[in-house]
C-alpha cells in the first residue's frame, strides 16, 4: 500500500523533530531533578549564602534572592517539587479519569447520560481554576495542591478516554466480542484498553504540562506550595517586589517552567500526531 508506506516514512521523518527534542530536554530535566541535592552548589534554603540580590556571577550562576539564597540551587531543587507534583497528579488523574470515562462508555445508557453531563460541566471549567478553587477549600500546602491538581485533571482524562472508547465501541470487533458473550469488564480490559492505550499516553504527557502550569500558578498566588520551599511559582512570587532591582529572580524560575512545559508539550503533540492519524495536531 503506497499510502501507508508514505505515511510511515513521514512519521519516521517527523519523529526526531518534535519528540526527540522534547524527550531530550525532559530526560535532562529528570536527571537534573534526581541529582539536584548532589549537584546544587548551596543549600536551597540557606540564607545569606551570598550577598542579597546579587546579579548572576561565577559564584551564583542565577544570582541570589532577597534573603541572599542561591537562586541556581533553588531552581534546581524546585525541579524536584514541580516534576514530583506533575508525576503524582498525572498518574492518579489518568487512572481515576480513565476509569470514569470507561465507565461512562460501557456502564449503560443512564450511567452514560448522567456521567457525561457531570464531566462536561466540570470540563467547562479551566483546570487551573478547578485546582485553585479546590485548594481554597482544602487549604494550602504541597499535598493539598497535588490533590487539587489531580482532581482538576480528571474531567480532561475522563472526556478523552470516553471519546476514544466510544469510537472503539462502534467498531465491528466489539460487536463480535459482545455477541460471543464477553462481558463489559473483560471487553474493556482485553480489547478496548490495548487499542486506546497509546492515545492515552500522549494525553498523559499533555496533562503533565498543564499540571506543571497549574502547580506554578497556585504557588505564585500563594495558595500552593508555601515559601520558603523553592517551588518555581513561589520563587516567582517572591521576586515580584524586586522586579527592577533583581529581574533574575523572575527570569530563571520562569524559564524553568517554560522549558519543562515546552518539552512535555513537544512530546505530547508529537505522540498525538504519530498515533492519531485522524486527528492530526491542528
Amino acid at each position: 500500500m503506497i499510502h501507508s508506506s508514505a505515511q510511515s516514512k513521514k512519521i519516521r521523518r517527523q519523529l526526531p523533530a518534535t519528540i526527540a527534542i522534547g524527550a531530550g530536554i525532559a530526560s535532562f530535566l529528570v536527571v537534573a531533578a534526581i541529582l539536584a541535592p548532589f549537584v546544587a552548589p548551596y543549600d536551597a534554603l540557606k540564607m545569606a549564602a551570598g550577598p542579597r540580590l546579587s546579579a548572576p556571577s561565577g559564584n551564583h550562576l542565577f544570582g541570589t534572592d532577597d534573603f541572599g539564597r542561591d537562586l541556581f540551587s533553588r531552581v534546581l531543587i524546585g525541579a524536584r517539587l514541580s516534576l514530583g507534583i506533575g508525576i503524582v497528579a498525572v498518574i492518579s488523574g489518568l487512572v481515576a479519569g480513565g476509569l470514569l470515562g470507561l465507565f461512562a462508555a460501557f456502564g449503560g445508557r443512564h450511567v452514560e447520560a448522567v456521567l457525561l453531563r457531570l464531566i462536561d460541566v466540570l470540563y467547562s471549567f479551566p483546570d487551573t481554576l478547578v485546582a485553585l478553587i479546590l485548594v481554597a477549600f482544602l487549604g494550602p500546602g504541597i499535598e493539598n495542591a497535588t490533590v487539587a491538581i489531580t482532581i482538576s485533571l480528571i474531567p480532561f482524562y475522563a472526556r478523552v478516554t470516553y471519546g476514544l472508547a466510544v469510537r472503539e465501541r462502534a467498531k465491528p470487533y466489539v460487536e463480535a466480542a459482545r455477541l460471543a458473550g464477553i462481558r463489559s469488564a473483560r471487553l474493556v480490559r482485553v480489547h478496548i484498553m490495548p487499542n486506546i492505550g497509546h492515545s492515552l499516553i500522549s494525553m498523559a504527557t499533555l496533562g503533565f504540562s498543564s499540571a506543571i502550569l497549574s502547580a506554578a500558578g497556585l504557588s505564585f498566588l500563594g495558595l500552593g506550595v508555601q515559601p520558603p520551599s523553592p517551588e518555581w511559582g513561589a520563587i516567582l512570587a517572591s521576586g515580584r517586589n524586586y522586579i527592577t532591582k533583581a529581574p533574575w529572580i523572575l527570569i530563571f524560575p520562569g524559564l524553568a517552567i517554560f522549558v519543562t512545559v515546552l518539552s512535555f508539550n513537544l512530546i505530547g503533540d508529537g505522540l498525538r500526531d504519530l498515533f492519531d492519524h485522524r486527528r492530526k495536531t491542528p
Partner: protein
Amino acid sequence: MLHLVFRKTVLALVTVFVVIVLSGTLIHLVPGDPITAMMAHSMTVPPEAMASMRSRLGLDLPVWQQVGLYAWRVLHGDLGTTIRGNEPVLNLLMQRLPNTLLLAVSGLAVALLIGIPSGFLAAVYRGRATDNVIAVVAVFGVSVPAFWTGLIMIQIFALKLGWLPVAGSGWRNLILPSLTLGLTYCALVARMTRSALLEVLGEDYIRTARARGLREHQILFVHALRPALISIVTVIGLLFAYLLGGQVIVESVFSWNGIGRLAVQAMLARDYPMIQGFIVVFATSVVVVSSSVDVLYSYLDPRIRTR
C-alpha cells in the same frame, strides 16, 4: 431553530444548577471545622459569634439540607454575605463583572487578531517554512505561563520603557493585561484556524473552483475563509471560558479590579461564601456565552440547524 434555542436553554439551566449544587457541597471539603478555618486569621472570636455564623451559613443542618438551602437561596438571587465586612456577595461580584468582561473581550480580540491570520498563513503554506515557524511559535506560546508573560511585560513596557502604567483601571491600563491574555490564547486560535481552513480546502467545491480557473486569492478569501471562520465561532465559547479562567491569575498580576482578583483575595482569606459566589457567577457567564455561541453557530451554518 426555536426548538434548538429551547433545548440549549434547558441544558444551560441544568448545567448552572449542577454547578450550584457542587458549589454548595464544596464547603465540606474543608478539613475540620470550616468556621474555625475561616477564623484562623482573626483574633479570638467569642463562641456566640461563631455559633451565629454557623447558623447563618446553615452549617448546623444535615448536609443535604445545607446544600438544598444553599441552592434555594442562590436561585432566589441570594449568594450570601462575605465573612469579613458582611457585604452581599452578589453586589461585590456584579460591581466587578463589567471590568472582567471588558478584559475578556479585549483579550479575545487580541487572540483572534493574531491567531486567525497566523493560522490562515500556516494553512496556506502547509508543510513549508512559514507553517513550521508558526507551529514552533505556537507550541512556545502555549508553554509560557501567563503570569510570567505578564511580569516580563510589566518589567519591559511599564518599568524600563515607562510607556504604560503598571496597574490600575482605565484604557491605558487595559493594554498590557489584554496583550498577556491574548498572547496566551492566540496559539490555540492559530491551531484551530489552521485545521478548520485545511478541512475546508479539502472539500470538493474548492477543487471545482480551482478547476474552473478561479484565482487562488479569490478561492482562499471568498470560498474557503468564510466557512472556516464559521467553524471557529464554535470554539469561541470554549475559548471564552479559558480566557475567563486564565484571567483569575492575570487580573492578580496587574491588580485589575475584576472578579478574578476578587476571587483570589477571597481564596487567600478563606472567605468561603465569596468563593462559592464567584463559582456560580463564573459558571453562569460561561454557560450564557457558550450557549449563545452554539445558537449563533447554527444560525450561521444551516447544516447544523436541520440536524
